């Protein structure tokens, strides 16, 4: 009888979950956690890959140590360190909140933990490049 018009489902695009426009602090936390989470997963795979080459003995080992000592690689270490800190500390917030702890204070908690992440990260960076 009557012509029906179905509502149009709006297409989801991959960048949508990363779109921080018109969102608040929580969205930043969300994005940081996703990016660092993805980064860490990638790192884990690389790590396994490398370990398996290392298992082949000194022939695999020596060139690897060369690469690892290069300054550009140290920079990657810094990235890894920040990733770990951000993901870990933000995860701490999520876990605490999940247990009903600090739910009302989740914003200051996030900011505080991120300050800790940055400070610790900075110290770590200094150590990596100087030691």
């Amino acid at each position, binding site marked *: 009888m*009557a012509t029906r018009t179905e509502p149009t489902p709006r297409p989801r695009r991959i960048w949508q979950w990363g779109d921080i426009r018109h969102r608040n602090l929580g969205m930043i936390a969300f994005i940081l956690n996703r990016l660092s989470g993805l980064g860490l997963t990638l790192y884990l795979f690389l790590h396994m890959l490398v370990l398996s080459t290392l298992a082949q003995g000194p022939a695999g080992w020596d060139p690897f140590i060369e690469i690892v000592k290069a300054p550009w690689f140290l920079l990657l270490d810094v990235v890894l360190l920040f990733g770990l800190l951000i993901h870990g500390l933000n995860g701490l917030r999520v876990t605490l909140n999940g247990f009903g702890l600090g739910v009302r204070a989740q914003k200051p908690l996030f900011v505080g933990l991120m300050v800790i992440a940055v400070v610790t990260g900075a110290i770590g960076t200094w150590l990596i490049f100087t030691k």
Partner: protein
Amino acid sequence: MSAPHVIVIGAGSTGAATAHDLALRGFRVTVLERGEIANQTTGRNHCLLHSGGRYCVKDQESAIECIDENLILRRIMPEALELNDGLFVAITEEDLAFKQLFVAGCVACHIPYREISPQRALALEPFLNPKLLAAVQVPDGVFEPWRFCLAFLATAKHNGASVRAFAEVTDLLRSGSAVTGVKVRDLRTGQTETLGADLVVNATGPWAGEIAHLGGVDVPVQPTAGVMVTVDRRLNNMVVNRLDKPSDGDIVVPQRQTSIIGTTSWTILDPDQIDIPKDHIDKMIHKGQELIPAIAQRVVRGVGAAARPLIRKANTDEREVSRTFECFDHKYDGVEGFVTISGGKTTTARGMAEKVTDLVAGKLGVSAECRTRTTPLLSYRLFYN
């Protein structure tokens, strides 16, 4: 033979309740609403499930209708009503003098009432004006208008009705002297189509006159606007009325988190263009404080206005017009297949629907009895299914 097809124009409380009654009696029903459900008068009314107390002195016919329907809705409508009763409070000696009339009115209209002491009233409603002199408790209630309509429409849909929002009737189809359907513009697509019907019910409230014109008949609807001012906090739990004859700003209705002060009354020409006079808003806030002084300490959260679809009668002030409804069979204007239902209140929507559906059933030779008094409505959420 398939059941007769009836088109209901307008999904305010009147159209929604009518669709329900029609569907329950086995008609094929299509509801056409040009906007969201309840987007006009019904959505923007004062949300008072009348006990009849407001009319029991000056308009006992309305009052009796209200208490009857109030008691029915309590039984059939889930999830859309708050039933905390209402208080009529006397602030001045003049109000106090009105009490006798009021109580006599309650008795005459079989409205259950209970006089309570000012102390007791203040204990129940701590925000009341502490200077109150007397208080009478009646079974007022509060409805949420949008969900009120959805409950009727959900049930109608369940019984086979089709409900189309954002479908505006732009013309009536006529064959000879009979209305045989409508022209609808679907606002979602911008396309216009025609829909045939055995009968068309005009339930467009303040627009009833306009739609009637499309059918070549005249309906004396007089759109009369009223303002409601909502403060940002719920200050009362029962409906608080001034114990006096109805006047501007004499009632504060709690609605969820807020309290709504109402209302005023002025005649308008076009219900699509209501400009709210600023002095009406100030008046509401001022008069509301006589009932609940704490209103002075709150901020206004929203202001709305809507037009009552009152039936015009000669030589009367707007407020004197009887608020009971009218149901027109346009056969008496020489047009078959066309009926208008207008006036009334949201509280009495079911009763109005019963009357118009009786008329429709009679015209289309359907003998089913009205069952809406006892049929429980579905949850409004099931409208979306």
